[in-house]
């Protein structure tokens, strides 16, 4: 793997983490409203999977979506402006934290009804299979989402119609405060895939190399016409489910244990131990990220609010 690629992964992961930390601050200041779900801890998954996709492959995810939005390359300032509900936001301030999308990048959102977007992903896959392309749809969802009807209907349809969908379960061990074992009849979520004709595979979601490799292989299988594939990424969210989570359902020790295997730490160690780059180079990247974030926040704060008449635009294409 070449140096430029590894440094780009590092940059994206640091950007996502710092973006989330900045967002938490802005939330505390009341500048971001609504629900805010941070992606801290899970960065390797968005970065590693999206690095393995072609731009013509589709991306669709749940409400914990800033990481995916940044990894597909939406400008940081457009994501931050959306957080602040500004007219310059990627969704014109109408979507907010949970509803980022950039159709020009085949990034179809940010969806906040648990499991619903799995059915949309099946439709994206259907559109590609209808047109007989070899593009795929990458669909991300949590462990909790595997218990809703949408999950089962969507995987079954994908299985039966051989739709080119890569199902990516980001198993961060909890759906809100409910541990996987308290909500799912099988604790290894990949087992659920077998009911729908997919093998399913568990991947270390903290290791961006593993994530990248597994995604490449799965996409390859899809393009060869082997039908939908399923990856269970084992990961952890360091912060609460959303802002204001009382965190009564897990111990500090558990969080610390996961932090030892931190996604950015693993990549950084790899880069330094293999002399891919120096500590100074990485520090340099940290600084550019900081500058980009500062600029993004300033841009968002200075941007105008949506005009009053925006309330009634975009409801229909044809009125």
């Amino acid at each position: 793997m070449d140096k430029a690629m590894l440094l780009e992964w590092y940059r994206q992961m640091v950007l996502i983490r710092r973006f989330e930390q900045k967002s938490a601050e802005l939330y505390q200041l009341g500048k971001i409203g609504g629900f805010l779900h941070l992606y801290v801890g899970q960065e390797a998954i968005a970065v590693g999977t999206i690095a393995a996709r072609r731009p013509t492959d589709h991306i669709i995810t749940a409400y914990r979506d800033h990481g995916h939005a940044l990894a597909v390359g939406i400008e940081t300032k457009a994501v931050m402006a959306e957080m602040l509900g500004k007219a310059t936001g990627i969704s014109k301030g109408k979507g907010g934290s949970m509803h980022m999308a950039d159709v020009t990048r085949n990034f179809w959102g940010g969806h906040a009804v648990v499991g619903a977007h799995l059915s949309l992903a099946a439709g994206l896959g259907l559109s590609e299979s209808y047109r007989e392309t070899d593009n795929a749809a990458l669909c991300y969802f949590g462990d909790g989402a595997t218990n809703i009807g949408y999950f089962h209907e969507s995987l079954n349809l994908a299985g039966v119609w051989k739709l080119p969908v890569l199902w990516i379960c980001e198993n961060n061990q909890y759906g809100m405060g409910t541990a996987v074992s308290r909500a799912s009849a099988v604790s290894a979520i990949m087992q659920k895939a077998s009911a729908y004709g997919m093998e399913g595979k568990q991947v270390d979601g903290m290791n961006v190399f593993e994530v990248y490799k597994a995604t490449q292989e799965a996409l390859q299988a899809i393009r060869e016409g082997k039908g939908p594939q399923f990856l269970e990424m084992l990961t952890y969210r360091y912060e609460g489910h959303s802002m204001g989570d009382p965190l009564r359902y897990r111990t500090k020790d558990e969080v610390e244990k996961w932090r030892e295997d931190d996604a950015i730490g693993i990549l950084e160690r790899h880069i330094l131990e293999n002399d891919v780059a120096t500590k100074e180079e990485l520090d340099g990247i940290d600084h550019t990220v900081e500058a980009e974030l500062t600029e993004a926040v300033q841009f968002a704060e200075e941007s105008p609010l949506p005009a009053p008449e925006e309330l009634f635009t975009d409801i229909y294409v044809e009125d």
Partner: protein
Amino acid sequence: MARITMRQAITDALREEMHRDENVFIMGEEVGVWGGTYAVTRGFYDEFGPRRVRDTPISEMVIGGAAVGAAMNGLRPVAEFMTINFAFVAFDAIINHAAKLRYMFGGQMKIPLVFRSPGGGGRQLGATHSHTPDVIFAHFPGLKVVSPATPYDAKGLLKAAIRTDDPVLFIEHATLYQIRGEVPEGEYVLPIGKSDVKREGSDVTIVGYAQGLQVAMEAADELAKEGIEAEVVDLRTLRPLDMGPVIASFQKTFRAVVVEEGHRSYGIGAEVVARLQEEAFDYIDAPIKRVAQLEAPLPYSRELEQSALINKQRVIAAVKEIL
């Protein structure tokens, strides 16, 4: 002009649009090999093949959602819910997704799909299979809701629904499939969101749509024998609702009855009456009446079921109360 059934008119619209546009395809339960539970897509599977006429598993949530996903990426799905009662299972896909995604993402997406579904009561199917829930779907901005009363309208409006870039719920009253009406040979498309005067008169305005429109027309025929000339306005589209012809008629007759098959409470009638008093208050000469389904689940037993549903006698009685 040929007199064809509503079923045939819908079938013709679908077939013509499938020939016209390669992006149009059909998906739903039993739409293919079976030929459609109500025989609307009979022959399509052989004509267009399994790629464009797709039998789905019994999975309303993903029928709804996959149609949205395919539409986002430029296809034009016509997704069928076997009956509107089962669309309840897909309510989230229809309302939270089809109707909201364009807005929520700041206009980035188009969702050019049609959900087709037979609905309505009167066929002794019991409470879960007899709903006329049109108003519930019409409540939400972002979705267009169409429900035709005649073969002519059904054909022209379904073609429009397939061609518009917005999501449309197209509700077909199951008891109307066999009614006949004149439909021209050539190609035509009707505008969504336009009410239509189906009969002219000067004594009273009767507003209806779908099966309610048919009942209104029967009542108007009877009333005419007694020298009462009713003007009948067909809403055709429930969202966006076109009150123009209703108000114009009311300003002539000063009296109105609204007929709908759904329940009376919070219904289409409630909406039309509210708008009439807001927009034509000075023309009100008598209470505006609503004829609608009684407030009970629909029972199986034939006479009991019919007693809850609308009929021409109830419309005639309502008209006479206010004349």
